């Protein structure tokens, strides 16, 4: 059995989008090192509720690193100290007894804060709605084997498709760019033959929407790739740029 530890937290508390927020200190005792980071926050919340105080709001759902709902900036790093993981996958064994941990929400113009650590990421949905799909009607799909895909391309497409839409890439980027997110979808569909017909429109429209939502531009810091819980590579951004450039030359709408 591992020994329980105590953790000091400095967390962002903000009543709603219009109120001013501030950092607030809390201490959590009896933290088992095998606990997940979010279970440690659950423990804090149970304490707060019992004391009659307002619990801390943070988004989470599947708690196994796939839904993309959770996302905290922990000691300055999106999703915390480990690479290739989400916040919910982080365990308290990464911390020492008596550590002070700073917890903040994703910060970006395109992700307004709803309450405490909860932000609004609907801007991502709007980007996808501008072309992150293949227009196929239900019932009209050809036999699956009529579309052959080389294993290498299927694997690369899957690397891009693994994006969970959490927004860590935006939170980590000094420009708050959504390039990694947007390029992952453009790249996935570019690597598959099914994506070919709408290729140009997709690149132009999705990139346009990304700008509309007030996400910044990419200037090759690669911070996004470093924090991405699914290790989506910035080579997809390169592919997106090629797609965008080709489309812009060929296709004037």
């Amino acid at each position, binding site marked *: *059995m591992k020994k329980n530890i105590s953790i000091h937290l400095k967390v962002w508390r903000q*009543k*709603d989008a219009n109120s001013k927020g501030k950092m607030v200190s809390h201490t959590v005792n009896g933290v*088992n090192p*095998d*606990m*997940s980071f*979010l*279970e440690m926050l*659950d*423990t804090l*919340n*149970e304490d707060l*509720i*019992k004391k009659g*105080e*307002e*619990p801390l*709001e943070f988004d*989470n*759902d*599947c*708690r*196994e*690193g*796939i*839904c993309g709902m959770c996302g905290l900036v922990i000691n300055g790093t999106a999703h915390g100290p480990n690479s*290739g*993981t989400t916040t919910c*996958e982080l*365990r308290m064994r990464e911390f020492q007894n008596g550590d002070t941990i700073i917890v903040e929400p994703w910060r970006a113009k395109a992700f307004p804060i*709803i*309450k405490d650590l*909860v932000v609004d990421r*609907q801007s*991502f*949905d709007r980007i*996808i*709605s501008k072309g992150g*799909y*293949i*227009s196929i*009607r*239900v019932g009209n*799909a050809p036999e*699956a*084997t009529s*579309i*052959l895909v*080389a*294993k290498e391309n*299927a694997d690369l*497409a*899957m690397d891009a*498709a693994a994006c969970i*839409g959490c927004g860590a890439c935006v939170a980590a980027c000094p420009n708050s760019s959504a390039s990694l997110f947007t390029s992952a979808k453009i790249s*996935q569909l570019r690597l*598959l033959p*099914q*994506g070919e017909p709408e290729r140009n429109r997709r690149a132009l429209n999705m990139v346009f929407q990304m700008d509309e939502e007030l996400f910044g531009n990419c200037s090759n810091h690669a911070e996004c790739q470093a924090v991405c819980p699914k290790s989506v590579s910035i080579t997809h951004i390169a592919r997106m740029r090629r797609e965008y450039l080709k489309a812009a030359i060929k296709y004037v709408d």
Partner: protein
Amino acid sequence: MKLDSKIPSGPLSEKWDKHKFDINVVNPKNKRKFTIIVVGTGLGGASAAASLGELGYRVKNFCIQDSPRRAHSIGAQGGINAAKNYQNDGDSVWRLFYDTIKGGDYRAREANVYRLAQNSNNIIDQAVAQGVPFAREYGGLFANRSFGGALVSRTFYARGQTGQQLLLGAYSSLMAQVHAGSVQIFPREEMVDLVLIQGKARGIITRNLRTGEFNAHTADAVVLATGGYGTAYYLSTLAMNSNASAIWRAHKKGAFFGNPCYVQIHPTCIPRSGDYQSKLTLMSESLRNDGRVWVPKNKGDKRPPSQIPEGDRDYYLERKYPTFGNMVPRDVASRNAKEVCDDGRGIGDTGLAVYLDFKNAIADFGRKTIEERYGNLFEMYHLITDEDAYKTPMRIFPAVHYSMGGLWVDYNLMTTVPGLHVIGEANFSDHGANRLGASALMQGLSDGYFVIPYTIGGYLGGASLEKISSEDDAFKNALASSKGKFEKLLSIKGNKTVKEFHRDLGQILWDKVGMARNEKGLKEAIKEIPKLREEFWQNVKVAGEAETLNKNLEFAARVGDYLELGELMARDALNRRESCGGHFRIESQTEEGEALRNDEKFTYVSAWEFKKASNWELHKEPLIFENVTLTQRSYK
């Protein structure tokens, strides 16, 4: 009221085609006059909303998360079944149908299951056309694997993230319809009541989770796609926000609840490590393709696994079931794990776990192959337990995973409330008493893409729907009572937190309505749950305010519903004095300890009608088998 399953006449293989011809078709110009509410955006909800939008209906689609892409279908790891027979191993629609009916221990409708098997092939075509990156071989064709309860390789997969990829496929189609203007998405908006006018489902009341505001939404038909109710057990493999409230409130408005006691306990989950635990993590069943399940032969053998020689190990599944071995269906695997643990041969600190060992597979195929097949699962296991499963066997234990039960629906997926349809895990229909692996994704998408788009037209084309408005009394009253309920929760200001109540309920359900049930335990549960419920409504402590984001309040309302549903689960389990699939009554087993059905008395669907608190009327839909012979399920 007599239950009418509306199963079409004719030979099994022609029923669905015939039915599609027989039902009403709505003129394309008239479709846009109809508004359909779809609650939920998982595989069922997203595929239904997208397909209905594409057909021309006006669709309002609700989800409790911040984006439709987060629904918990996304957590499905292993794969999706289809009868494509790409591996030339003798698969067919008939074989998939047969395996599924048998896997469900002959407690599902033949016609529904056959339709599901037929649709399975269309689903793969649809997903591939959408750009879902299924695993491929070097020639560009599909890679397949096998799952429990099947002797063929019919499972399609995208690494260990098949649910994610299929959901993102459905989500992309949904967003295309949002762009086209046919579907409107309402994120962070939870259904809190169903509204009936003249006996028909005509809308819902929602609570905006950001602002606490209550809204009335009118419609011509309502589709619930809100998933299962496993979270009633507190610890489960479900997402934290998954809940039963939408179906439960529809149940209280007149929709019968089918087979509430059929809950699947999945055999391969990471064991629980402490009281703080908030959920259990599943390790895909596909691991059993290459992993071997074992425990020490001798009780109390506390040696580390590496020091237990082959001769002292009991590979109990391989020993007892030589034909299926580690690939027996989930209910059988779970029950056997419980048995060896009850026998004192469980491993780890708690003694509530068994080993899943990859040593042989790594020796046979090399670490690289195993990494390719299950890399992300091994990684996940490492993150959670701090153990390297390439070197030491995984520890696994069963956990609540899937509800085969759900709202009763007919062949058109309509409930006993006209206009209210239920699809995917939220309905009871296709898996009988046990669901086979890789069949949940299949059912969600079959219902959403290929069934509801047709059958809802059959309803709308034939129904006489009067003009209504959200100002009607039915809406105003439902809105006021919903609001009252949330205000009440905040006003109790008791001493016990929502989580404490939930944990207490979970303990009762796990102990008494879990993997093995008996009359005594069930009767106790039927007494204990209402008592806990009463205490809840007098002594719950809910934090925060009504007018902002308040997750504690959301949870309180959901736990209030579990405290009613849990009682019904126990009552249904008590009524069914037989063992079948995931429902194991200790009183009803074969000499070898396998589930023993009582076909003479229980070949029916239990459909419960809510009367008042703690009072339900049982209706029975007889299950008629014309094409398969009921046998004692054997995987030996």
